[in-house]
């Protein structure tokens, strides 16, 4: 009995001392795979560009200056705001937001449908949703190119059914990027909403209908507040990767539909790359994402209280 703690404080303390060594793997993983890469990226963004990719260990703000400031084509004009990258950012945010909205509009009814099936068949529906994701994203995005191109199955089908006369130039447009983003991230919207709807107490919607709420009012006043956490989670899970996506814009959007992901990707490719600039763009992107997450967390906690 001598080794046992006498009181609760003693118990808590002895568990705490035990917890430290047990938590070591967690700290290692967070440190090596999260903190270290981010730190590296932040440091690189303040270094000088080496001629053939890579960095020189000299501190400079050149990368951030390149992002925000222009001195004209030949560098001899007075400094003014560089809009190129800000516009790319704005386009990316806009595209990602639109894709998120699209995923929500399609994903919510899908999740609702699955969650309201008999319990035995829900598993099958979820399985069907996830099947395409067993194939590599690159391959699926390339396949989309074939589906969307001028003489691809989509246009062929539309022409055969007489809906259009000439092929729609979908490929290499913002629409194609939207389709690609939507397709890539839809399950990340469906799954959290499904989980929330499945937990929803349907007796509550009966109670609301009993109290004179029509279908829309039941949805608005009772269902949505209850599944809100699922919607918020889905929104984040789609918006953030969509913001940094580069496969869909690269392969489906062509030159016009340039997004942040492609811009960063370009900075680390071959000898034309600019590592500090790529790192700086990443840092700016991460800052934006953190701000978005912070706003979301505030909204969520306000909803909960």
């Amino acid at each position, binding site marked *: 009995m001598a080794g046992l703690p006498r009181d609760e404080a003693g118990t808590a303390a002895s568990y705490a001392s035990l917890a430290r060594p047990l938590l070591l793997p967690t700290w290692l993983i967070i440190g090596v795979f999260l903190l270290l890469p981010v730190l590296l990226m932040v440091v690189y963004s303040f270094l000088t560009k080496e001629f053939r990719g890579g960095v020189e260990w000299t501190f400079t703000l050149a990368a951030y200056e390149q992002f925000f400031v222009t001195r004209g084509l030949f560098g001899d004009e007075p400094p003014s705001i560089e809009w190129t990258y800000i516009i790319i950012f704005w386009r990316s945010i806009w595209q990602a937001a639109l894709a998120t909205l699209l995923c929500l509009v399609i994903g919510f009814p899908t999740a609702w449908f699955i969650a309201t099936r008999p319990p035995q068949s829900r598993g099958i529906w979820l399985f069907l949703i996830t099947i395409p994701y067993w194939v590599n994203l690159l391959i699926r995005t390339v396949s989309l190119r074939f589906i969307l191109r001028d003489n691809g199955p989509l246009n062929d089908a539309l022409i055969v059914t007489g809906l259009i006369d000439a092929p729609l130039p979908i490929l290499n447009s913002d629409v194609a990027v939207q389709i690609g983003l939507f397709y890539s991230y839809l399950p990340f919207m469906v799954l959290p909403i499904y989980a929330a709807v499945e937990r929803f107490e349907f*007796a509550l919607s*009966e*109670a609301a*209908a009993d*109290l*004179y709420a029509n279908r829309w009012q039941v949805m608005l006043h009772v269902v949505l507040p*209850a599944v809100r956490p699922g919607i918020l989670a889905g929104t984040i899970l789609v918006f953030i990767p969509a913001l940094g996506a580069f496969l869909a814009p690269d392969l489906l959007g062509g030159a016009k539909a340039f997004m942040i992901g492609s811009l960063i990707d370009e900075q680390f490719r071959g000898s034309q790359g600019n590592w500090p600039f790529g790192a700086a763009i990443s840092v700016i992107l991460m800052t934006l994402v953190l701000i978005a997450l912070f706003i979301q967390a505030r909204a969520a906690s306000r909803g909960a209280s």
Partner: protein
Amino acid sequence: MDVAVSIRNAVKRYGATTALAGVSLDITNNAFFTLLGPSGCGKTTLLRMIAGFEAASEGEILLFGQNIVDLEPHLRPVNTVFQNYALFPHMSVIDNVAFGLRMKGVEIAARRAKAGRMLELVHLSALADRLPSQLSGGQQQRVALARALAPEPKVLLLDEPLSALDLKLRQAMRVELKQLQEETGITFLFVTHDQDEALAMSDRIAVMSQGLVQQVGTARDIYEVPVNRFVAEFIGETNLIDVEVTRVSDGMADLVLPSGQRLRCSSAATATGRHALSIRPERVTVTPDGQLTATVERVVYMGSDLRLLTRLEGGREFTVRIQNAARTAVPEPGARIGLKLEEGAARLLAD
């Protein structure tokens, strides 16, 4: 006497199971009407059909003369107190209570005032701003009641609203519910499987079993003049003995007890022959000159009264309840006693 709800030959089937096998009922306006029956007899099904959550397989449901079977739930002027309360977890107590008025388009000041009055009625004004999760079971039950009463429904449906409460609270709520019904004048259709609850509160009771209404009447009716074996056994405690009926007329029967003695009593049976006679345990006195003779097997002490478990001469068990008064002479087990039926104690059953 207006009829608030009229159910005409309502049938409900779920695949192969028949939950309601043809129920017809008239529920008078401003009454406290109870559906009483064992688990699975179809009470909830009937209530949900009136509220509109289940479609009837056959039959009609009239609300003040209007057939409502095709009306959506939100268009029916009835409100429900659900068995598990189903309070909206993200809304405060007052918002829960005001919800029905809000959906009806009552503007905010008016509906808050009304909801406040409803909370006063159920003694919960102090907790108006709490969330349902911060309330005890009994308090949640009152919120559910206030929420259903606030829009002033024409009929209030209550599905075993007291079953989750402890005995003391349940007994207190019985009185309160009855008072509330009298004060508001709203027709209450109350569902329970607890006969004490039904007897204590109801103006009229429909006893249900296996998807059918067995008997409708006042508490006194169904207790004292049950129509069949099911009602006699389900309501309270009773002794059933087989008797030979020699003559029936005008609801009275002449019969022969197993002891050979003759008896005349009220009858639900309309034919002579062998029938079951129901005798309530408390309507029998222990005297040497009884119509029945029995041997005492056990004496069970119940506090306010004593229960004598006896066996009749023919071998049937027979329970007698006697008051635990100071002057009561308690027979010992093994004693042979005579049992005298009080006036009107026996009732001949139809089946």
